[in-house]
């Protein structure tokens, strides 16, 4: 590989990993409070659809992003209500939400967004790359670091913010203590339910933003099931990143690089069965689960329903 190919590969890796990073960060926040979020795929899909629809009707990607955020928040709220207040199974609600979102986005897409059967597109109105003056003109480095859209930089900033929030603020401490031991947190006067609700809503917002990233920056259209399993990959990213914000960033970059490599190698004429390469993220995750990358420990109360006494 020459330098230009490498630059193109890394740049592609970043583009492919950012939606996953958004969803994974969202998932991580909720995981840290001790609640599973298996509805990431549903939230992403909803975000992708609403983002697209917002642009389609108003022509402004900001409206699209706003709609996506609202949709994600609603799904987050639903997840919180069913799991936190009603004590429903955290696993099954996620699966149910995935069916629900797949059906509903497909339905509204057909009803609202296609003339005949051809998709309407939003060719001109989306978040384009910010060409940072001078830096984006740098050879190689310019393409890799300084030629992305604002959501990409926002995602990186979010990683820094979440990491600071988790480990340097009292709120972050409260949040983590809820995930480790809700009983103790409750005794210490922390409102377990409230924290889990907020985390779920934030989780929904972030995952939906990740979905909206697909339709607002990468492609100018929606297609049914456009997320194509990215929500599950986000789940894998959380574990591979050892339940840490920075880990999530590295993990999503590694996975993104893997996906990009599949595409890049094909373009370079290397012939390998595509299925083999597609398996890599799952193999990596299982490797992480069994401790190849060091001990991975999730929050102790993960998946357990907490009943306030």
């Amino acid at each position, binding site marked *: 590989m020459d330098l230009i190919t490498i630059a193109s590969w890394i740049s592609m890796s970043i583009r492919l990993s950012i939606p996953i990073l958004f969803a994974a960060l969202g998932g991580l926040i909720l995981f840290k409070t001790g609640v599973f979020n298996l509805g990431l795929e549903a939230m992403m899909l909803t975000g992708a659809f609403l983002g697209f629809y917002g642009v389609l009707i108003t022509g402004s990607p900001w409206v699209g992003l706003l709609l996506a955020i609202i949709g994600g928040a609603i799904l987050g709220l639903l997840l919180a209500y069913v799991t936190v207040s009603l004590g429903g199974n955290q696993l*099954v609600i996620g699966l149910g939400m995935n069916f629900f979102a797949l059906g509903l986005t497909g339905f509204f897409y057909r009803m609202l967004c296609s003339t005949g059967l051809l998709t309407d597109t939003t060719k001109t109105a989306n978040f384009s790359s910010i060409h940072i003056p001078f830096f984006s003109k740098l050879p190689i480095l310019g393409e890799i670091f300084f030629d992305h859209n604002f959501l990409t930089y926002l995602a990186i900033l979010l990683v820094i913010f979440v990491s600071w929030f988790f480990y340097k603020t009292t709120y972050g401490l409260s949040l983590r203590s809820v995930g480790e031991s809700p009983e103790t947190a409750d005794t210490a006067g922390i409102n377990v339910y409230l924290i889990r609700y907020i985390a779920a809503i934030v989780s929904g917002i972030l995952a939906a933003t990740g979905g909206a990233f697909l339709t607002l920056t990468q492609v100018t259209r929606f297609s*049914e099931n456009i997320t194509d399993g990215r929500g599950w990959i986000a789940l894998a990213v959380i*574990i591979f990143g050892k339940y840490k914000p920075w880990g999530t960033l590295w993990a999503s970059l590694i996975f993104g690089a893997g996906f990009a490599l599949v595409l890049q190698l094909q373009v370079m004429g290397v012939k390998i069965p595509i299925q083999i390469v597609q398996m890599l993220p799952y193999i990596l995750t299982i490797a992480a689960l069994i401790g190849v990358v060091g001990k991975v420990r999730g929050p102790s109360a993960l998946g357990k329903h907490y009943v306030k006494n």
Partner: protein
Amino acid sequence: MFDIRSSIINQKKYKVFYAIIPFLALFIALFIGGVLIFFAGINPWKAYNYMLQSIFGNIRLFSEVFTHFVPLVFCALSFAVAYKGGFFNVGGEGQLYFGALTATLAGVYIQGLPAFIHIPLVLLTGFIGGAFWCWIAGILKIKLGADEILNTIMLSYLAILLINFVVMYFLKPANSYISQSEKIAKSAYFPKLIPHTQINLGVILSLLTVIIIYYFLYRSPYGYQIRAIGENSDAANYAGMNILKGTMTVIIISGGLAGLAGASMLMGTQYRLTPAFSPGYGFEGIGAAVMARNNPWGIILTAFLFALLRVGAGAMQRGVGVPLPISWTIEGIIMILITGSEYLSNKFSTNLIGGRA
């Protein structure tokens, strides 16, 4: 009979309420689905009416329900058994695929056996395949502490890709342009109970399995141990039970059941392995199990219902052009409502039995 709690405290009212909730959820979901159908410009009453008429008006079409029913029962039982033993097996889909793979090998490459030997043999290999894939998840959990919810999901996706690869590069006959395995031997086909329908040996086997699983879980001392481990492994350990062995047994049975789902699809309807072999029975089975509150008898009902919805979705589309996404939405709403309603039933039982939810 419905749950360990109710078998201890036999409250009749409580049981009735417990049983009503799933139907209530179904009703609400169908109602919301009806609203969507209305927005699609179709008369919902006509759509549902057509669905019922077309399913129950023709024995051949009705028998299609069993095409889905059999694998759904196996998948739901797979989840339920694991759940009762305290193991969350979300990877039924992958185990189904792996079971189908091993069953295909036994069905295609072992020829010339009489049916009464070949059928059990293929079923057995299917069981072993599914059990093996679940056993990996179990080992990862028990020996290496990898969370089973996550590793069964990952193994599931891995299995689907693996089967896609194996079919395309190894099982495909050299002269074929289509990515699929060869047909299994005729001797491994499930005999049909009613000619020209989908009611075959698989239906009996799945019902038989329900009975076996019920007696195993609720009537055998070993089943009692397993449920005890699932309820509270510390207490079970304290009582001197072998947790490791119990959990491993559950894992093997659970995976094997999902493998049987794959084998039964292979022998009952599909006869050959293809890359997109299962239309998501593994995940839907979880829904059916949860809706039945992991009770084997209830699973017969819920698996039937989910199968009915599947055939009904097809019928509504064929007959009156109801878009397919609506059916997915209905299914999703049912699962969400059922999950949410755990609270209601818990609260109700709390009121009745006083305190313990």
